[in-house]
């Protein structure tokens, strides 16, 4: 019995050994670990909002309008007497949902297109390259604002707009990766051995670009979180009274003189949320993508 244990401990598979090495390298970066923990905290807050929020985020209280922080309302109340803390907790839902779903959507669009174009090249590649150029000629926000205006204002449509807006940049990344991976010796060896395209893409190309994609995802999430806030702020995302950090900021504007707290709190929430994902992304980049180690 003990023999088996020792063998398992010393003769880890190469993959497990690599995973352990990466974990060790990640844990040696305190900022990345902090980013991971804070990001997880925001995700937890979004999932368990009903259990964590002290009040109903849409409950009005005319007797407590624009109140400062009190024991009952830790972050005070807004212009309609709603509890700000509860609205921040619920607002995390819109931000995390938009951030994660928009990133997944962008990946789902970008990876197949980028990999196909980069791997097969031929007539498809220049077309994909030109089309991405076209879409990139429209600034991300203009594109998202336009799409949100076409689709109508809602969180889902804002998320779709953000995902579509983020896709062209990711297509370029995926295409570039596929282009360079295709020239690797092991891919040429696989081709020489008679492996089919599907199996080469599935077994060699995709697994080898996972690291880059993970890093790209962690930098796309904070961009989408800020994007959701901007769209909601402009009235093209989450609609009031549903709480979202962008909606709260927009509603706070008339009160910057009397109650700057109304603008301060949701902004800090957006900032810390996107900061945590950025820290995590930087850490993952250092660990997973040593070529770009700064």
């Amino acid at each position: 019995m003990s023999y088996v244990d020792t063998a398992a401990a010393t003769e880890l598979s190469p993959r497990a050994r690599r995973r352990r090495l990466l974990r060790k390298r990640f844990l040696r970066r305190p900022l990345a670990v902090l980013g991971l923990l804070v990001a997880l905290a925001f995700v937890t807050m979004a999932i368990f909002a009903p259990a964590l929020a002290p009040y109903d985020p849409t409950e009005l209280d005319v007797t407590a309008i624009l109140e400062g922080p009190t024991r009952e309302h830790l972050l005070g109340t807004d212009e309609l007497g709603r509890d700000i803390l509860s609205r921040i907790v619920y607002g995390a839902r819109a931000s995390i949902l938009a951030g994660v779903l928009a990133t997944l959507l962008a990946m789902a669009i970008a990876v197949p297109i980028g990999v196909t174009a980069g791997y097969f090249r031929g007539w498809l590649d220049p077309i994909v390259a030109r089309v991405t150029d076209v879409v990139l000629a429209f600034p991300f926000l203009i594109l998202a604002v336009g799409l949100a205006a076409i689709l109508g204002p809602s969180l889902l449509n804002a998320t779709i707009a953000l995902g579509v807006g983020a896709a062209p940049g990711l297509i370029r990344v995926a295409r570039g990766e596929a282009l360079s991976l295709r020239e690797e010796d092991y891919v040429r060896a696989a081709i020489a051995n008679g492996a089919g395209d599907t199996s080469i893409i599935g077994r060699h190309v995709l697994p080898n670009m996972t690291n880059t994609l993970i890093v790209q995802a962690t930098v796309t999430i904070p961009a989408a979180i800020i994007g959701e806030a901007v769209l909601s702020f402009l009235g093209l995302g989450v609609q009031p009274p549903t709480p979202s950090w962008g909606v709260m900021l927009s509603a706070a504007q008339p009160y910057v003189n009397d109650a700057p707290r109304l603008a301060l709190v949701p902004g800090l929430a957006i900032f810390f949320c996107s900061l945590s994902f950025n820290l995590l992304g930087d850490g993952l980049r250092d660990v997973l993508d040593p070529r770009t180690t700064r």
Partner: protein
Amino acid sequence: MGGFLLRKVGAALIVLFLASVLVFVGARALPGDPALALGAEDRDPAVMEAIRHKYHLDEPMPLQYVRWLGLALQGDLGTDQRELSVAHTIVTRIPITLELSAFAVLIGMVIGIGSGVLAAVRRGKPADYASTTFALVGLSIPHFWLGIMMIIVFAVNLQWLPAGGYVSFQDDPVENIRHLLMPAIVLGTGLSAVLMRQMRSSMLTSLDADYVRTARAKGLSEWSVIGKHALRNSLITVTTVIGLQLGALISGAVITEQIFGIAGFGRLTIDAINQRDYTLLQGVVLVTAVGYVFVNLAVDLIYSYLNPRIRISGRAA
């Protein structure tokens, strides 16, 4: 160089053509009937019909597109809902946004390049950590919120700067700068953060390069090694970064102008969407795309001039 130039210009023209189609179709995909918007209170079918006919809305789409593009190429972008020339409105708004953007790019470059070089030269020292932290904060902060916060601090509480609006340079140079300072800082923060990171990493690469070691070995002063050799090479990448950041800059201008109540090109975009003004929106987005494509073409050409290797191998991966 000739072939390269031709290839780049050709690609830019194709992009522009496709972009114009996208703009045209996109504007028509917006909800709401422009005839209804133009007719205002009047819902009489005959009036609707007359409006549709007047604006050629009853023609097939491809014909509408060709008509629109033909006029656009002559500088005629049509008239908006208030019967004002779209091209004229855009031309009056653009200088404001250009001034704001130029100011922002200046701030972004000074802070970004300065702190990036400092961080690379003082690698691992407090100055490095301070610069890197600044860049991280600059990337994570929602700029429109930074704008609101600056208004609260510098306009409402300290009353140092105006909270919004715009005064042209010809009218009052001092007020012009006072009005643009906060918006330009807000708009420049993101750029400075991106530039700082780029500068730091390319300076670190440059400082490790052989020619820098040679320069040091020749006994050149540290100042001249950093300034003349390492910095000059790192600056090449800055051109690309600024070209790539242009989209972010235009997006940023939209929201910054909204926050600071500046009636520029960015504000015009939001107004056009909110008022469902198709003609105006088409014009605004088309001009944005054209500007973006041209600036990036210029960046490509400058870059290939600065870095001849690109001309042969195409754009670096």
